[in-house]
C-alpha cells in the first residue's frame, strides 16, 4: 500500500461521531487525514492527488472491528489454532484489533508468558493485545503479578470463565489493580451456585434434565463485584453479561457512578436456549445460552449503551472435545470470522441500526480501554473495513480460516461481508483473492 491513498464513493459509518453519510477518506502514513462528503475523486484529481484511489462502490466504510476476547490454543497443540490461523480468520472477519484473553488452557498469568507471546506479535498484520490472568492459574486464590503484566503490556486482566469464591481475594484484586489503573474483567458467575451448570434454569432445561443455574447468579455476582469496586476504587469489566437480571444489576451499578465496563458475547445477542434444544455440542458455551427475554434485554442494553463491547469469545477446541454429548462437550465456539455477519443479522432484522450495532465493536471498546483506533476521524489510525452490508453467505467452519471446527453458527445464513480490511493504513485483507 502506498503511503498515501484515498477511499472514495463509500458510505462512511462512524459510531464514535454518529456519522453515516456518503463520502470518502484520505489516509497518509497510516493516519486518517481527511474524511467526509467533500472527499471526491474529481476534487482529488483537481488537487493533483498522487496516491492510489480505491472505489468503494457505495459499500460501508467503518472502523475496523475491535474484539476484546478471543482465545488461542497452547503452542504445539496438534491441529490447534495458531497465531497465523487466528489472525487470518480475524482479518477475514473485519477485526483489526484482537485481544487474546486468558482461559483455563492458557492462563496467561505471568509476565514471562505475556512477554513471550508479545515477541511473536510484531510481524502480524493486525493489532494483537493480551489480557493477563488476574489470579494464578485463574484459580481465584492468589493474585497474579498484575503490575509487571501491566508493564509488559497487558491491556486488562481477566479471570477467564472462573469465579472468585473468596471475597477478600476479590477485594484485594480490585484494590491492587486500581493502583496500576488496570481493568479487572470478571465473568458474572458464582463459584457455587453456577458450579457444574451447563444451561440456564428454565422450563426447557428442566424438561431436558440439564444441570442449570438461575439467571440471578449474574445479578448476585455483579452486585458483589460492583460493591467491592465501589469500596476499593477498582476498575471493573463485567465480562459477558448474558441475562436480563445481569443488565438490571449493571444499570443499577452504573447509576451509582461506578467505573464499570461491560461486554456481551455475540452468541448471547443472536441465539437463545431454544437454539440449543438439539443438544448438539457446538451449542455448548460459557455462559450457557439464555432465554429469549434475556436476549432481548441484551439487545436493548446494546441500544442504550449499557454494554460497551460485543466480543466474539472465540474459543477454538479440539474435535475430540466436541465429538461428545452436550453435557460432556467442552464449552466454547470459534467466532472471529462470524462476529460481523451475526452482528449485521441484528441490523437486517431491524433489532439494531447499523451505528448501534457497530459501536460496541469499534468506539465502545476503544473508549473503554483508551485505544486510539476504532473511529473514523482525522488524526485517528487508519484501521478501517470496507463492508458489503448485504452480501449473502452461509457460514461453514470448514471454509473458515480458523483451524478448528467448533462453531455455534455452523450453517447460519448471514448477510454482510468484509471486502477489505486496513490496519494502520495497510491493507491486510481483501476478498478479491
Amino acid at each position, binding site marked *: 500500500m502506498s503511503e498515501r491513498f484515498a477511499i472514495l464513493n463509500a458510505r462512511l459509518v462512524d459510531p464514535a461521531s454518529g456519522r453515516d453519510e456518503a463520502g470518502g477518506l484520505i489516509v497518509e502514513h497510516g493516519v486518517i487525514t481527511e474524511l467526509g462528503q467533500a472527499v471526491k475523486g474529481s476534487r482529488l484529481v483537481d488537487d493533483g492527488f498522487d496516491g492510489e484511489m480505491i472505489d468503494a462502490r457505495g459499500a460501508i466504510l467503518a472502523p475496523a472491528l475491535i474484539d476484546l476476547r478471543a482465545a488461542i490454543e497452547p503452542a504445539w497443540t496438534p491441529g490447534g489454532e495458531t497465531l497465523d490461523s487466528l489472525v487470518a480468520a480475524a482479518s477475514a472477519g473485519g477485526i483489526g484489533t484482537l485481544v487474546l484473553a486468558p482461559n483455563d488452557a492458557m492462563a496467561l498469568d505471568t509476565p514471562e508468558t505475556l512477554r513471550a507471546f508479545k515477541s511473536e506479535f510484531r510481524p502480524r498484520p493486525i493489532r494483537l493485545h493480551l489480557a493477563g490472568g488476574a489470579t494464578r492459574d485463574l484459580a481465584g486464590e492468589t493474585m497474579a*503479578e*498484575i*503490575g509487571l503484566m501491566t508493564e509488559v503490556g497487558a491491556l486488562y486482566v481477566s479471570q477467564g470463565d472462573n469465579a472468585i469464591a473468596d471475597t477478600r481475594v476479590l477485594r*484485594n484484586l480490585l*484494590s491492587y489493580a486500581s493502583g496500576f489503573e488496570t481493568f479487572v474483567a470478571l465473568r458474572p458467575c458464582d463459584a457455587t451456585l453456577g458450579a457444574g451448570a451447563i444451561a440456564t434454569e428454565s422450563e426447557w432445561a428442566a424438561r431436558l434434565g440439564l444441570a442449570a443455574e438461575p439467571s440471578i447468579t449474574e445479578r448476585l455476582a455483579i452486585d458483589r463485584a460492583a460493591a467491592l469496586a465501589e469500596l476499593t476504587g477498582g476498575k471493573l469489566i463485567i465480562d459477558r453479561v448474558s441475562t436480563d437480571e445481569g443488565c438490571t444489576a449493571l444499570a443499577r451499578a452504573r447509576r451509582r457512578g461506578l467505573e464499570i465496563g461491560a461486554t456481551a458475547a455475540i452468541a448471547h445477542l443472536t441465539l437463545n436456549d431454544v437454539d440449543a434444544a438439539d443438544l448438539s455440542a457446538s451449542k455448548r458455551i460459557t455462559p450457557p445460552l439464555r432465554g429469549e427475554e434475556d436476549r432481548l434485554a441484551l439487545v436493548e442494553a446494546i441500544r442504550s449503551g449499557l454494554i460497551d463491547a460485543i466480543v466474539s469469545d472465540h474459543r477454538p477446541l479440539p474435535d475430540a472435545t466436541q465429538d461428545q454429548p452436550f453435557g460432556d462437550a467442552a464449552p466454547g465456539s470459534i467466532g472471529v470470522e462470524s462476529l460481523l455477519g451475526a452482528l449485521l443479522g441484528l441490523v437486517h432484522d431491524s433489532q439494531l441500526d447499523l451505528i448501534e450495532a457497530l459501536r460496541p465493536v469499534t468506539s465502545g471498546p476503544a473508549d473503554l480501554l483508551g485505544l486510539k483506533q476504532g473511529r473514523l476521524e482525522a488524526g485517528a489510525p487508519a484501521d478501517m473495513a470496507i463492508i458489503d452490508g448485504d452480501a449473502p453467505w452461509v457460514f461453514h467452519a470448514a471454509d473458515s480460516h480458523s483451524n478448528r471446527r467448533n462453531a455455534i453458527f455452523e450453517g447460519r445464513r448471514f448477510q454482510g461481508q468484509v471486502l477489505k480490511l486496513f490496519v494502520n493504513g495497510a491493507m491486510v485483507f481483501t476478498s478479491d483473492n
Partner: protein
Amino acid sequence: MTRAEFNYDFPHQRLVSITDLNPLDVDILFERAEHWLSVCRTPSKKADALRGLTQINLFFEPSTRTQASFAIAGKRLGADVVNFSAASSSTSKGETLLDTVRTLSAMNPDLLVVRHKACGAAKFISDATGIAVVNAGDGMNEHPTQALLDAFTLTQRLGPLGGRRILIVGDILHSRVARSGVQLLNILGAQVRLCAPSTLLPLDADRWGADVFHDLDDALEGCDAVMALRLQRERMAAGYIPSSREYFRFYGLTHQRMETAHPEALVLHPGPMNRGVEIDGALADDEERSLILDQVEAGVAMRMAVLEAIGTLARSNEARR
C-alpha cells in the same frame, strides 16, 4: 514561647500513644535523648537516674532489637531490668493476660515495657495495674518509641522537621510504626507522604494528615527523607501483593529511584530489613544516605529519655504516697 520561658515538666505517667504527647513533651524527650546519645558514646555510659527502680520488659511477641534496646536503656539508667518473654511465660500455659500482669505487678515493678499482638494491650495493662507502661508495640496500633527515635534520628541530621517532606513507603495498613510515625511527624509540622499498593493502605489514610500515593516515583519527588517499612512475608500469602519481585519493582527503594527525591535525601528503615524486597542492599549500606544504624543507636538514647521521664515521675509519685 519556648519551654524555658515557663515552668513545664514532662507530665505523663505512661507512654501508650503518640497522641498523649504535645510538642513540648517531644521537645523534652529530644533534648534528653540528645544528652543520652552523647553519654552513650563515652566509655562510662552508666547513669543512676532510675537506680532502685525495677523495669520489666514484658514481650508477648518475639523481638530482638526492641527488647535489647529497652533492656540496655534501662540498665544504663541504673534500673534493675527483668526480661519476660512470651515463650517462657505463663500465658502460654493458659493464664489470662490479666492474671499474668496482676501476678507481675504484685512483685512491685516500677516500669513495664509491653509488647503484645493485641491492639490496646499497653493501655489495658496500664489501666489494670496502675503501673507506668511504655508501649513497645500493640498490634497494628502504635509503636511510639519507634516514631520518636525515627524523628529524633532525622532531627539530628536535618534539624527541625517542620516543613520537611517525609515519605513512608510500604505496608502502611499493618504498620504500628507508620501509625505512630504519621502522628508524630504531624505534631512536628512535617509534610508527610504515604506510598503503598492500594491493598496495603487503609481506605481513610488520606485523612491522617498525609498525602497518599500509589506511584513511588511520584511520591519520592522532592522528599527530604524516606522510610521503607518491612514487608512481612505473610502479607504475600494473605494475597495483599502478588510477589516480592513485583513489590520490589514498584515499591522497592533503590539508588535509581532516589534520584527523584531531594539530592541529599535520607533513608530510614525500622528493621528488620528484607534486602531486595523493600530496599536494595546497596542503598541500605550507603553511609551517605542510610540512617538505619543511626536509628538503632538513637533508639537506645530515645528509650533512655522516655524511661527517664516516666520513671522519674513514677518515683516521685511513689514518694508522695
